[in-house]
């Protein structure tokens, strides 16, 4: 132990559980936000909780490496990315609605179904692992599913990017929560998502300049091979 707190092992696990549930609930709340600014805020909160979870795991598992991860998550995902996103939102004047393609009610029911499904998926196959691992894995999978669900149900490219990064938070949650996962994996995911973020950034400005909107439904109207029709 780096330093010892006067806590029972059960309490240690409980706090870890609470943090992973918090990350999941943030993913859920993200789906309920009507304004992009609030979506970004919820995302920042999720990243913050994730950083806390990583730090807590660093303490519980006694791994200094994870502490670095926590700091990276805190700085990059909870501070820098939200700031950049906010700038984009202000610049492109997107503060208003989030433009959903599925109604909020149905989105909610779908999200709850996905959370249940991920538990149904994780619990039976992990009967040998401890309660903490199972719950963390279930929560992580839920976050991933919720991220996917958000990508599907949103029309604006910017919401989809936030969703993608929320999805990556799920992957990270699994990585920090399960003992003995090498740091390389998370590094690679992080770099991957950073790249995607950049690609999407360029993509934003392009579709914005061409269609005066960030609605991806515009893309469906583009004829990729127009000469095929003319011939």
């Amino acid at each position, binding site marked *: 132990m780096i330093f010892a707190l006067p806590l029972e092992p*059960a*309490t240690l696990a*409980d*706090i870890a*559980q*609470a943090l992973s*549930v918090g990350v999941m*609930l943030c993913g*859920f*709340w993200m789906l*309920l936000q009507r304004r992009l600014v609030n979506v970004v805020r919820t995302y920042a909160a999720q990243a913050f909780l994730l950083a806390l979870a990583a730090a807590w795991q660093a303490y519980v598992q006694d791994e200094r490496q994870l502490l670095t991860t926590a700091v990276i998550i805190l700085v990059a995902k909870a501070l820098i990315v939200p700031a950049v996103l906010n700038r984009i939102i202000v610049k492109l004047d997107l503060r208003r609605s989030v433009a959903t393609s599925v109604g*909020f*009610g149905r989105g*909610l*029911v779908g999200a*709850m179904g996905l*959370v*249940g499904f991920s*538990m149904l998926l994780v*619990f039976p196959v992990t009967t040998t692992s*401890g*309660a903490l691992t*199972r*719950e963390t894995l279930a929560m992580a999978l839920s976050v991933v599913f919720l991220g996917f669900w958000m990508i599907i149900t949103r029309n604006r490219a910017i919401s989809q990017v936030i969703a993608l990064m929320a999805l990556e938070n799920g992957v990270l949650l699994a990585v920090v929560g399960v003992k003995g996962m090498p740091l390389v994996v998370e590094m690679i995911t992080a770099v991957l998502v950073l790249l995607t973020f950049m690609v999407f950034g360029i993509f934003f400005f392009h579709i914005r300049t061409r269609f005066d909107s960030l609605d991806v439904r515009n893309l469906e109207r583009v004829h990729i091979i127009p000469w095929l029709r003319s011939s």
Partner: protein
Amino acid sequence: MTLFSLALDVAHVGLTVAVAPLLTGWVRWVKARLTLRRGPSPFQPYRDLRRLLRKDIVLADSVSWVFIATPFVLFAIMALAACLVPTFTPSLALAPTSDLITLVALLGLARFMLALAGMDAGTSFGGLGSSREMLIATLAEPAMLMVVFSVALMAHTTALPNVALFVLAHPPVFHISLVLALSALVLVALAENARIPIDNPTTHLELTMVHEAMILEYTGPHLALIEAAAMIKLTLYVALIACLFAPWGMATDLSDARVVALGIGTYLGKLAVAGTALAVFETGIAKMRVFRYPEFLGTALLMGLLAIVFLYVNQVVS
């Protein structure tokens, strides 16, 4: 049932009924202070009730017996519910006769009657209130049941005194299921008591009211009974939350007067704390649109379900 336990039950109901207007007055006073108003004294609800009780009754031409019976039924149900929820002691004579699910159903009966009364005068506002009230109930009931379910999983019973004794017998723990179930119950309680963000207890703007719209046609003593019932309901929910999640301080040994006094003292303290928290919460938040209720209560439902799932996981492994 001995004479002593009967007297205890009467004292128990009497305390909750007597203190209920004070809780409502306290919430209003704190809210006034938070918004930099002086506000009426916390004892104002008592004066309001007394004033209403002395007034004449005006009945709409079209009302039937439902309208007249509802205030009495409502008050009786709330008082009965006060017999069932342990406040300062878990040793109640009546409490073993019914459990948490019965309590929820009793409150459902009260709501059923009130919604019918809202429709009885044949006005549009009454119907509007009834319709929305029943919608809220429809959404809140599943979440409430999930809370009941998770409590029952923890304490292996749905009888309220047994739950309180169970929690008292175990050291206080921090567990995610408890947090989730508590949050779900708080959300449900806000919705059920017509508080912000679901309903605004102080509004008299026609299109935003739910509870107030149903009781629009009530006058005089009828209105006093309904207002009193609403106040008791708020107290009841605070007592319920305290009983399920923080029963500490309850008097298990009734032969010691000091322990009983401590029990009553902590109960009043819990009410004050909950009232202050409610006032702070309501000051900081705005009322929701009607069609966002499903999201609010859907979140409560999800939290309740998660609480149960985590209880399952922990039970299997440990």
